[in-house]
């Protein structure tokens, strides 16, 4: 295909953000919202078209574009396979929802906010399309800037501290990754990852390079013990920021493990598996317990995200078919569920300006529709069969069990804790009698909120019963990932 469809996909949001920037919309923000909504929706359709035309019977990279950026050094190389397309679709699907949520939640500098979101979208799609380490690095780190601004400008009262913490953590990891990328160039003479797959990095360098990549991915994931930026970032971020952060930014690290760590450093991946297991288990149990005791809704959900990401890292490094497929599924599903939960918090935050659990209680008496949707997402988050949350978790655990009984049993126990904090949250927010008289005057969710939440609920349930569209897309790519890994291990 000659038409550079991936570049179009990446730069479409950027282009429309330029439009918004140039538009002289001083009196009302409607036109900016319409432009961004329209463009993000177009991006979504384009990504759906990509998904539709992707050949899922092969694990080859498709729609490949290759241009030299700096001669003989960095190629602007893009391409997708069955794994990355789903993350792209997730990104383009979540972005319009975020823009809709702005209608209710962002009151100042709407135009600038939309520009930040669209630029962020460009970077995120770029991350999932890159086939060159330098390009990947640029997109991966550039995403920090709009996110940093979203938290720092539109955030809550402690936004500066949170933005700083977020930046410090993520930058620390990425500096090491940059050094590793330079080292890889020095070792192999290229930064094109398809070539690196072929060349194979010498065994003695793998461990140190793997650790350098881990330091970046672990922070983004986030894995224990570098997770503490996430609750603070979520708490202070505006709703749309939280949604993007939880739904997409956290997935970049998981994607990074699959695309870079495992294929480039198979021997190191094998070597460090026990480390990942340990950190994942701590993440699952420890953060679930911490989540149980939170009195701030956003913090609770943020901690639950850390626990859910623990299942993802666990599943990826089982390097079994079920484990990896479960992890990818869990990432997609968490993208939908956590987005929905943060939107749910946003809905009541817009009305009462409090994230504290104790402010609420008995919402079902006055906001029945909202309560119903909240319950659906809470149940999906605790992994109820029939929702997408269940399959990912269950497959990861089935995969883990093949590697270690002990780890799998601890991780399975995390599911019990998951039920405990989610149901307790639901009880304190939704059920019971109304103690706060302000709740009585609240309106149930409006049209735009219904559109967002019902769409998400539909997909959460649909993919719980019929996961085939997703599973079939990445199945072949996952097979070849595991096969290549096994070949690399056997040939060492």
């Amino acid at each position, binding site marked *: 295909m000659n038409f550079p469809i991936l570049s179009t996909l990446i730069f479409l949001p950027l282009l429309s953000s330029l439009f918004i920037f140039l538009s002289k919309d001083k009196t009302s923000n409607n036109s900016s919202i319409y432009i961004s909504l329209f463009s993000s929706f177009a991006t979504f359709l384009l990504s759906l078209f990509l998904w539709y035309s992707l050949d899922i019977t092969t694990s080859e990279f498709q729609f490949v574009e290759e241009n030299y950026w700096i001669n003989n050094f960095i190629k602007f190389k893009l391409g997708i396979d069955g794994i990355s397309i789903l993350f792209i679709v997730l990104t383009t699907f979540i972005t319009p929802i975020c823009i809709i949520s702005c209608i209710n939640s962002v009151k100042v500098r709407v135009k600038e906010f939309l520009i930040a979101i669209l630029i962020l979208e460009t970077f995120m799609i770029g991350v999932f399309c890159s086939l060159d380490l330098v390009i990947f690095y640029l997109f991966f780190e550039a995403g920090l800037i709009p996110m940093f601004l979203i938290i720092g400008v539109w955030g809550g009262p402690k936004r500066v501290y949170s933005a*700083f913490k977020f930046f410090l953590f993520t930058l620390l990891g990425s500096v090491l990754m940059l050094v590793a990328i330079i080292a890889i160039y020095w070792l192999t003479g290229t930064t094109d990852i398809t070539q690196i797959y072929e060349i194979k990095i010498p065994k003695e360098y793998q461990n140190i390079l793997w650790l350098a990549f881990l330091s970046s991915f672990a922070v983004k994931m986030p894995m224990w013990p570098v997770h503490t930026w996430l609750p603070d970032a979520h708490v202070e971020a505006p709703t749309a920021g939280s949604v993007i952060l939880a739904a997409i930014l956290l997935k970049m690290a998981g994607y990074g493990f699959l695309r870079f760590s495992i294929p480039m450093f198979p021997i190191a991946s094998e070597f460090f598996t026990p480390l990942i297991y340990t950190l994942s288990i701590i993440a699952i149990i420890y953060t679930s317990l911490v989540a149980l*005791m939170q009195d701030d809704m956003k913090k609770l959900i943020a901690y639950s995200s850390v626990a859910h990401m623990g299942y993802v890292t666990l599943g990826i490094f089982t390097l079994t078919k079920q484990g990896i497929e479960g992890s990818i599924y869990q990432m997609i599903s968490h993208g939908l569920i956590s987005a929905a939960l943060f939107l749910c918090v946003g809905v009541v935050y817009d009305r009462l300006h409090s994230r504290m659990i104790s402010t609420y209680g008995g919402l079902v008496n006055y906001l029945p529709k909202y309560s119903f949707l909240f319950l659906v997402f809470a149940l999906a988050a605790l992994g109820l069969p029939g929702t997408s949350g269940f399959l990912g978790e269950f497959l990861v655990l089935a995969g883990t069990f093949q590697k270690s009984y002990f780890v799998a049993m601890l991780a399975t126990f995390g599911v019990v804790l998951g039920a405990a904090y989610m149901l307790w949250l639901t009880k304190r927010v939704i059920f019971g009698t109304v103690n706060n008289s302000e709740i009585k005057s609240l309106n149930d969710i409006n049209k735009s909120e219904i559109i967002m939440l019902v769409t998400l609920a539909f997909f959460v349930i649909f993919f719980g019963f019929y996961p*085939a569209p997703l599973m079939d897309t990445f199945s072949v790519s996952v097979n070849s990932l595991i096969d290549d890994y096994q070949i690399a291990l056997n040939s060492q």
Partner: protein
Amino acid sequence: MEYAIIFLPLIGAVIGYLGRSLAKYFSEITTSLLVAISACLSLITFWKGIKSDIYGNYLIFEWISSGGFTANWSINIDPLSSVMLVVVTFVSALVHIYSIGYMSHDPHKPRFMSYLSLFTFSMLALVVSDNFLQLFFGWEGVGLCSYLLIGFWYKKDSANNAAIKAFIVNRIGDFGLAIAIFLIFLFFGTINFEEIFQVTNLYAEKKLVFFGFELNLITLICVFLFIGAMGKSAQFLLHTWLPDAMEGPTPVSALIHAATMVTAGVFLVVRCSPIFEYSQAALNLVAIVGMITALFAASVALVQNDIKKIVAYSTCSQLGYMFFAAGVGAYHVAMFHLFTHAFFKALLFLGAGSVIHAFKDEQDIRKMGGVRKKLPFTYIFMLIGTLALTGFPFLSGFYSKDAIIEFAYLKNSSLGNYAASVGILTAFLTSVYSWRLFFKTFHGPYNNEKISINDTHESPFVMLVPLIFLSIGAVFSGYFFKETFIGHHSNDFWQTSVFFLNEIKHDVIPLWFLLTTPLIVLISIPISFYLYIANPKVLKDFKNTNMPLYDFLLNKWYIDELYIKIFVNPTKKIGSFFWKKGDIGVIDKFGPDGISKLVKILSNKTGRLQTGFIYDYAFVMLLGLSILLTYLILK
């Protein structure tokens, strides 16, 4: 038709709720009607199975496929599932109809009916599954509906807590079930029942090292499966949620917490009989836990005062019976007891509901009494239910419960004999607490001060009709289905759905043994009447002299208190500790906050070096020069 049985309740749940504003009784009628149709179709399916062996597996579509981990959505009709279909849809239809009357004053009726139908759907999905994953779906699905229905009156804090407790204790059981599924997948490479059962015998001797112990694979799988069953069927140690679940409306207790959901554990063990048969150790565990539960729950039921809690503990105890039947290898008898129990226990619960309704939501039996003339129909129905439960000769409980005790005896092992004696002892206790409930409710003086006796009234017609049907079941289901379920030719009925490694023996049981249980049951009636009505002083004296024992039983062996002390509170404490000390105290303190502080201190210090005075700089330059020179000279 099979599709209709499963999906009609789901359709009812959705339409019934969405169309709630269409007409006044829209949800009630739609849901009840659809479930009733489903019940009729189940009866036809069941009948076709008995008469002409028409069974089959109907594929809906593939659910998931990841490597060898594949599972379908499917409807598997075999003798075992057809029995469950009848029990579930039949009781559910009656409970639906009953609820129209019972919930008539509740503003959230449509939601209630919709939940009931949703529950029915989940339960059906559970019983017709042909693989472990769909079973797990139904398993957690019924758990969800149970959660929603226990917490139906969401304004009550106690109801919300009970709902959460039920869900979480069930999740602990589900943990066991999930591990069992993983083990099965790991070794068998499939989670399809038929494929597993075909090759189970090849793994009978397989050992594996599990946490440093060398264990038999089959035993391990069975133990974890049984942990799942214990959670769902409220067996000893995981039973605590069931009595609390009585916070839900009474029809829910009848449907979910007596007739159907709680029997899912028994169903699971029977369904997996081809696996359990290869592990004597696991079967012994099942039998022992069953016995402990039967005895424990009956002992607690003796002293409870809440009418629903007594029946709940009674359910717990009867489930124990079913488990020890399965544990001594009499799966078909366990199923038979499940079948008859569904009728008489649902009858008792709905009867209790009728009593509560009459007393305007009073549940304490100490505040009842003397209303047999005011509630003649309820009185008769409760009498039938009590007789059936206690195993009065020729009623349903008589056939099934005595069969359990006889099979245990026939086992001719020490465990079998032990089980038989526990069975007889529990039968006696069952009889005593059942009659206590009955006499205290309907006989003796009228004890309620809030409502005058003339205000108590019989329930409306719509609530009594289901009771009639259940009474018929409670009286005749034992007699009519005895031959089919547990007779000499029962194998013709069960076919391969229930598996026996060794032929079951049909030895002759000595007459004295056959007569023991019925006699005990008969004698206990006048004893109970004497103790509770004619001369309550005897019992009062006994109570006063044995206060510690009474308190021990009244507080349900203090198990709830123990759990709060050793599980709930420490979990919360550890959670706070990790948060306050781990995240904030260590990671943040030495991580970002520490670094920023360090940078600040260092920059302050280095900042002070820039004094701005020329002689300071000149001095440092001189110093540097001299050090450099010294170094060069010495080198």
